[in-house]
């Protein structure tokens, strides 16, 4: 295994041995540790001193099911705190097969210089593309690179938003068809990649040695068992393959936790028209794909391919959060318009969640009206054009709220709050408030016990048990994010006592380790501690672990509940870790 360092000031690549303390780390555990060790917490995120760390999960590249998740770490331009942004696509598996533990990109080239970073079995090389590829969206970039280097290479790229270094810019990762539908979306990682002068990273695993593997036979046995655990779970094995994540629209709507009209209501009258069931019917009718994997070897295959009215490809990976945000939160019930917005965001390279929250804020401020899909589409297109208005929108919800003078801005640590109302799904509220990442639904997905009856049941409307639930999930998630396993594997892990030991068996067989179950939780705690310490050094205090005031003051219908978990109670999440 090796770590590559790419210095953009000097245009040089060097190879390093993996330090002993990094040996058992991967994914988020590794990116967060390297950022904490090497980056000044007070640096400018788009300046020379920030770094971008790319790491596959520990199991990525092996036959472990659903293990192709990638972590990108940096100091976030959006939150100004530490960031791990996690994506599917084919990058992590290829890096794992090349036995690359991490790529650290540092320094800064001269203004206006842009490069492609090529990664293959012979190492890494930079190619100047300042006269080529610039100004292009992710669809065009990926098509052009794959046209040159073959359809099997993975491309990670930035669109125009990353070139402009906007705070909501994402890094796109190509899916198995070579489309830019998977993203390190949250936190503006694309702005950092743009600041490093990298337009695209091309990963070619032709002739790769294959993943690091200590004991193949034991590994295969554990991987087979874990595959069964996923397939036997009703959500991982049936629900997700059939409907994808958009199936949540109806259940959140029924539960009164579907944020509507910039978080004014918990139910949307047009929910039926944008529901997962409706999307599945449309996809079937237009000969798209209802079951599609974001990376090969995923057994849950929650992605889908969505065609337009003429039956031509429009977008893929059409997620619940995207549909919620451009739909219910903007009071838009036109699913084809929402699909177009998803496509535009993927192409320009901006986070769909941040953009959805931003569109809600822009509607709040009267820039466009609620329920105006054409207006929303036009605003998103402005980002790609680099107009002043586009740059305001592309800098996210907090920035847009300030620019247009509205104080109803649903963000924590300046990151947009996703698709579960924190008043009606209180466990999520705890996670949004306290996560090291800013408002992030995956960081401690309390929707499981609050809404889905997975891993037990905790009443979403009551404050009882939410702090403990969120803390336990945040610890477990930090560990899962280090393995390369998809966060949805947690559904099976939460419901089946045999599943987590199977993951530990895979790690032990692959790396010749003797980990025990308890070590998994210790790893999660240690990652959170490292991240939280970085944020503290960057100037964050407990006062930053709070939701916007309106969630405490305004009751959300239909349950007419407020967020009533006190600051003191929120501080208990990390009380024992600090």
């Amino acid at each position: 295994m090796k770590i590559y360092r790419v210095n953009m000031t000097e245009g040089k690549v060097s190879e390093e041995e993996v330090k002993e303390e990094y040996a058992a780390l991967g994914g988020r555990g590794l990116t967060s540790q390297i950022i904490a060790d090497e980056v000044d917490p007070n640096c400018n995120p788009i300046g020379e001193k920030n770094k971008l760390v790319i790491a596959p999960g520990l199991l990525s590249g092996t036959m472990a099911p659903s293990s192709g998740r990638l972590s990108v770490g940096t100091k976030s331009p959006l939150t100004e705190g530490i960031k791990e942004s996690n994506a599917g696509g084919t990058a992590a598996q290829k890096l794992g097969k090349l036995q690359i533990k991490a790529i650290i990109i540092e320094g800064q080239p001269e203004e206006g210089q842009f490069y492609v970073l090529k990664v293959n079995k012979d190492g890494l090389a930079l190619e100047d593309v300042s006269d080529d590829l610039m100004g292009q969206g992710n669809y065009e970039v990926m098509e052009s690179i794959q046209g040159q280097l073959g359809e099997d290479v993975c491309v990670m790229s930035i669109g125009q938003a990353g070139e402009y270094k906007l705070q909501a810019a994402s890094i796109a990762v190509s899916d198995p068809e070579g489309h830019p539908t998977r993203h390190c979306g949250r936190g503006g990682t694309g702005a950092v990649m743009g600041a490093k002068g990298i337009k695209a990273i091309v990963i070619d695993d032709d002739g790769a040695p294959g993943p690091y593997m200590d004991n193949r036979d034991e590994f295969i046995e554990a991987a087979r068992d874990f595959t069964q655990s996923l397939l036997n779970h009703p959500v991982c094995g049936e629900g997700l393959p059939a409907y994808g994540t958009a199936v949540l629209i109806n259940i959140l709507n029924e539960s009164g936790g579907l944020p509507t009209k910039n978080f004014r209501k918990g139910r949307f009258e047009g929910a039926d028209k944008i529901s997962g069931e409706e999307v599945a019917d449309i996809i079937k009718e237009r000969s798209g794909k209802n079951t599609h994997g974001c990376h090969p070897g995923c057994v849950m295959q929650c992605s889908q391919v969505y065609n337009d009215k003429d039956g031509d490809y429009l977008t893929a990976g059409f997620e619940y959060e995207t549909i919620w945000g451009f739909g219910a939160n903007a009071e838009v019930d036109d699913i084809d318009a929402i699909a177009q917005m998803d496509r535009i965001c993927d192409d320009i390279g901006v986070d769909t969640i941040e953009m959805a929250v931003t569109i809600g804020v822009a509607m709040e401020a009267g820039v466009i009206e609620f329920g105006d899909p054409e207006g929303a589409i036009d605003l998103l297109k402005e980002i790609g054009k680099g107009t002043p208005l586009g740059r305001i929108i592309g800098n996210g919800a907090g920035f847009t709220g300030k620019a247009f003078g509205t104080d109803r801005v649903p963000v924590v640590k300046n990151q947009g709050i996703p698709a579960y109302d924190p008043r009606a799904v209180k466990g999520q509220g705890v996670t949004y408030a306290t996560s090291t990442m800013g408002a992030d639904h995956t960081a401690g997905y309390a929707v499981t016990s609050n809404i889905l009856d997975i891993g037990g049941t905790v009443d979403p409307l009551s404050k009882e048990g939410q702090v403990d639930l969120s803390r336990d999930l945040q610890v477990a998630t930090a560990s899962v994010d280090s393995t390369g396993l998809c966060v949805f594997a947690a559904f099976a892990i939460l419901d089946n006592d045999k599943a987590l030991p199977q993951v530990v068996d895979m790690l032990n067989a692959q790396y010749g380790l003797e980990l025990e179950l308890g070590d998994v939780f210790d790893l999660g705690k240690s990652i959170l501690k490292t991240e939280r310490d970085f944020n503290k050094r960057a100037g964050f205090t407990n006062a930053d672990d709070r939701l916007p005031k309106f969630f405490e003051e305004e009751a959300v219908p239909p349950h007419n509940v407020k967020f009533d978990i006190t600051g003191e109670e929120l501080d208990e999440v990390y009380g024992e870790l600090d």
Partner: protein
Amino acid sequence: MKVTVKLFATLKELMPEGQNQMTVEVEDEATVDDLALQLDIPEEKDLIVKVNGRHGSRNTVLEAGDRVGIFPPVGGG
């Protein structure tokens, strides 16, 4: 008494074609389980139940006018 019922995901096919909700006549003090039986939802099927937007189960006793949402196990995120 009458309750309003919405079935979702794979259970949606048990709803009348083209309808997103239906009114169902049930016995007084009927449970969700009684309702499920009446709607031909398989007995062994795990269900997520929301009654008036709150957590419910097969054992929840229904009242007149309740809004009942029934889902097979679903998830996402």
